[in-house]
């Protein structure tokens, strides 16, 4: 059981980081970013190229993944989402744009990296063994980095000037604008930050599970699940959702093993029941 909990915590830290980016973008722009999973994959490929192919240090690769995605996210906001949000009659139009961006990223990555599963050498070798828990050191390291990133992100949102501006934006866009918050600039920063988080997780996870160009979609679905559990647009909810999903997956895979591959079916069923009782997740605003 300790093993299951340890796995769950490790998975949860990854998931929380993915959900954070998604929820941030949603809170600021009211955009459901379908391309989030693809951004994650792109981050993974950047790390694969720099760490796996060019043999530069892992830290450099990780930073490059984050920076690439941040630039990409910023440009995406400025040149794609902002004009469409301004001109379309219905807010939902951004979903088509997000889906099209997801296709686009899929296509680009397929052309650049092919269909193969790509892995990188281990960051640190060795396995932590006690009488109850067995965890490879690199997983522990990745888990710790993820938790540190979450903490840094929370501090940034809580105490820095851009963080405060973004929280104000998320609460009430018009009011924030009236108070002198530069809405356009902080929307862009927020989008870039969300994309950066996706890229960094991709970079972290490629060192353990590897990456291939087809996993973007499933990752997006998992991120949506976490955001729904916690409540859309709420930072705390995304973290809670990530850990809950990680734990459920870990427990489910162990407990339900003898019934076949039904872990996710059970998770979905539980989610439906949960949402019919609490339609806006654990911490979400009603009708976020």
């Amino acid at each position, binding site marked *: 059981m300790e093993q299951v909990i340890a796995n769950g915590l490790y998975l949860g830290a990854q998931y929380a980081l993915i959900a954070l980016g998604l929820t941030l973008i949603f809170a600021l722009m009211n955009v459901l970013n379908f391309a989030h999973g693809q951004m994650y994959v792109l981050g993974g490929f950047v790390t694969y190229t720099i760490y796996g192919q060019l043999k530069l240090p892992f830290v450099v690769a990780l930073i490059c993944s984050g920076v690439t995605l941040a630039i990409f996210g910023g440009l995406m906001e400025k040149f794609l989402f902002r004009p469409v949000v301004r001109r379309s009659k219905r807010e939902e139009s951004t979903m088509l744009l997000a889906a099209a961006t997801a296709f686009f990223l899929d296509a680009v990555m397929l052309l650049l990296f092919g269909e193969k599963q790509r892995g990188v050498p281990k960051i640190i070798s060795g396995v932590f063994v006690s009488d109850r828990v067995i965890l490879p050191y690199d997983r522990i390291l990745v888990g710790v980095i993820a938790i540190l990133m979450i903490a840094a992100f929370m501090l940034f949102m809580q105490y820095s000037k851009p963080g405060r501006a973004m929280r104000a934006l998320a609460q009430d866009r018009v009011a924030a604008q009236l108070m002198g918050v530069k809405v356009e600039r902080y929307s862009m920063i927020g989008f870039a930050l969300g994309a950066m988080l996706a890229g960094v997780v991709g970079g972290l996870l490629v060192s353990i599970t590897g990456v291939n160009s087809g996993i973007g979609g499933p990752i997006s679905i998992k991120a949506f699940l976490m955001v729904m559990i916690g409540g859309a647009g709420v930072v705390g909810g995304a973290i809670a959702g990530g850990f809950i999903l990680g734990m459920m997956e870990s427990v489910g895979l162990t407990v339900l093993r003898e019934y076949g591959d039904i872990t996710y079916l059970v998770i*979905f069923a539980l989610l439906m029941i949960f949402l019919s009782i609490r339609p806006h997740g654990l911490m979400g605003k009603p009708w976020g």
Partner: protein
Amino acid sequence: MRHAPIATLKIASAVVFLLALLVAVPLLINATGRTDLYYTLTSVALLSIISAGVWITFYIGRINIGQGAYALMGGYVSAILVMNYGMSFWLTLPLAGLFCAAASVLIGLPILRLRGVYFAMVSLVLTEVARLLALALPITNGASGIVSIPLPSRLSLFGLTLIPDFATLANPRLSFYIASVLLMALCFLGLYRLAHSRIGQLCQSLQQNEELASSIGVNIAYLRVVAYALSSFLGGVGGAMFASISQSIYPSSFTVADSVNFMLNCFLGGLGYVLGPMLGTFVLYFGWDLLFQTGEFQLLIFSTALIVLMLVLPNGLLSLALPRKRSL
């Protein structure tokens, strides 16, 4: 009375369009020998029926990315009824639709209370649930699916043959095409009537402001379940027809990607127009097919075109045809 000429014009153009589809297209295909186009056009007709269902949910202000679940369900219901119980396909077609509608009422009662992205995300998950269920249930035959479903048999009423046995026909493709086009015409006629009826107006009030609608006495809970059931009915019928044409159904026949495509069809055509889903499906499906020759760049060109389209015409293709008003 003032609208009478416009109404006649509309009816006339609809009749011309239908005649073109039913007479001119087969003649052209015969002349050019491109019989593979039958399958493509049949697919477009069926996919636009399924997308029309998604459009109804858009009409009540919900983003539905779960239509693939109902299409899959409809396909399985029809396939199981034909294979295990030997029912006539034409009888299973409405039954598949009704089964999906009933299921959607059960699913919709809790989840239709969700709005905006919450509903969108739950519906997205729904497709995945349907796929996993199809894999896990014993009756659906798991990953190997249900194969070699017989072609639709004869349908007769009072000794009069309404639809001949497809297996004995010289060209089942043509008959599938005609059946699908007729089904599509029926579906869009109903949709047009619905959108211009009192219920349609009420649905629009839901789309704009549910609280306000509720405060002036609109039964919003009832209305949105009805709209969702209609939407799923269309999904089920389309899925059943698809299963019959491809004579097989698998858990991966309709996936999340298909659900997203159904949504994209509606967006692309324009959410404000009844014919939006039809045009969107046609453009998306044919665009994708045409790009097949570009090989590995197919997806890249396709997605770039979508993005550009979105930037140029964020309100859908049909917004071109209408006079441009400056919006805020």
